[in-house]
């Protein structure tokens, strides 16, 4: 009897102690079960300067994207006679990107160069900070982009087979947001094409893209990308000299719009064109100015009245 009461008192004392929690420790015990969430945007937009980023469109968002590459700043085609290339448009692009889900984006676009029509599918496989324990270190996105050259052939033999008008670009993209300011990306890729001039120029062209973003302020970033192509499986001594595309730019976000002001040696905008055909170099005035305007529209809005926005 005595032993029993002692035991019970002891037990009660312990339980009493357990219950005497502070708000802090109780809150901690509740929030410990919540794992880290995926990190905020690694890049602001689906593209960096020339290359794709790991970002996709948000579900039901439509992005109207207008891109422009001007002419050579210097050299034979530049200087004051063309107002440093501003008189010339080596390529123009208009495209629409649509988020079917937060992870899957479908797009259609058209470039001036080659009258190229583009379509791509982009899927976000992994997100940094995601997973069961929030320990996924990278963003991984896969991209498949098709190009169709719609222009008339330059020579009678150019598109002897209609299939020669098509090219396919496949690219897994890996990125990581290292800090609030710095995000880096690497993307190996392969371009399948038929429309090759030099017999020694491989139809299936390997490349590796490197890209990065450095945020200068919350809404202004320095962006850059470089694609290594020549010297991989493509000889560097072809009859036509090709260069690796390098683009640098300033990206300005204004809430709904993203503007970027860029300089690059690549004349063309779509991967299906610029990966294989960049013939200008940063040396000898081959660099040009370009810009991107991206405007986002939310097509289907939430029906939840508690979060509806009202514009007067």
């Amino acid at each position, binding site marked *: 009897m*005595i032993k029993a*009461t*002692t035991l*019970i*008192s*002891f037990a*009660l*004392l312990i*339980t*009493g*102690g357990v*219950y*005497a*929690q*502070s*708000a*802090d420790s*109780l*809150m901690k015990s*509740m*929030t410990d079960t*919540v794992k880290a*969430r995926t*990190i*905020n*945007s690694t890049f602001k937009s689906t593209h960096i300067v020339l290359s794709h980023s790991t970002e996709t469109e*948000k*579900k*039901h*968002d439509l992005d109207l994207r207008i891109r422009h590459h001007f002419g050579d700043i210097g050299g034979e085609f530049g200087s004051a006679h063309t107002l440093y290339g501003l008189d010339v448009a080596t390529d123009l692009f208009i495209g629409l990107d649509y988020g079917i889900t*937060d992870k899957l984006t479908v797009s259609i676009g058209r470039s001036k160069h080659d009258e190229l029509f583009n379509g791509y599918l982009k899927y976000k496989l992994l997100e940094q900070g995601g997973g069961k324990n929030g320990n996924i270190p990278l963003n991984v996105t896969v991209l498949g982009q098709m190009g169709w050259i719609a222009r008339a052939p330059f020579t009678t033999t150019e598109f002897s087979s209609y299939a020669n008008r098509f090219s396919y670009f496949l690219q897994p993209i890996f990125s990581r*947001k290292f800090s*609030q300011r710095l995000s880096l990306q690497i993307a190996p890729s392969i371009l399948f094409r038929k429309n090759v001039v030099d017999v020694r120029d491989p139809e299936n062209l390997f490349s590796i893209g490197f890209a990065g973003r450095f945020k200068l302020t*919350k*809404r202004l970033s320095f962006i850059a990308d470089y694609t290594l192509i020549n010297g991989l499986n493509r000889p560097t001594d072809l009859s036509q000299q090709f260069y690796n595309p390098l683009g640098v730019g300033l990206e*300005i*976000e*204004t*809430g*709904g*719009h993203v503007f970027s002001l860029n300089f690059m040696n690549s004349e063309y905008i779509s991967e299906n064109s610029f990966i294989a055909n960049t013939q200008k170099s940063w040396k000898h005035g081959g660099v040009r100015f370009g810009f991107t305007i991206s405007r*986002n529209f*939310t097509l289907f*809005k*939430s029906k*939840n009245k*508690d*979060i*509806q*926005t*009202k*514009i*007067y």
Partner: protein
Amino acid sequence: MNNLKKTCKLLVFSITLFLSFSIQAQNYVGTNVKVNLFSSTPIEDIKAQSNKTNAVIISKTGEVAFQIPIKSFEFEKKLMQEHFNENYMESDKYPTASFKGAVEPNISWTKDGDYPVLAKGSLTVHGITKPRTISGNIKVQNGTISISTSFDVACVDHNIEIPMLVFTKIAKVINVKINGTLNLKN
């Protein structure tokens, strides 16, 4: 002698029993407390909502605590949500907003009724903590606690910058509403 020992033990037992019951403060917790944000300007009204807020009440001391996961707020436009997280709240750096304080004076948490209260404590938003006294209402009914409050948060108080160069207009003072129920935690 044996009798005395017995009485003594019984005394210890009853004291412990009494102590344990008095220490056994009743704690109330809620995990799906709703938080609404409202920003109003002559150009645009913006609303956001989260129902993932945790709330804790220690009835003995009148302590209250709220923890709001910033990334759980939903907006009508996903892009707006992204901007809220990335540009304004910097939720990678400051994942939660919180309030810690006490209801003054403490109320009788077991007696059904409506209690208008003041919660004195500190509000942490965007990593900046400010002392605040927030008025609200507590309703006790059958052991369930319902809380509701509405208060304003000035962006400037918490170093939340609103730049000039944005197309979306955001108010300098954001209204916050908190509503939810807490149940006895066993």
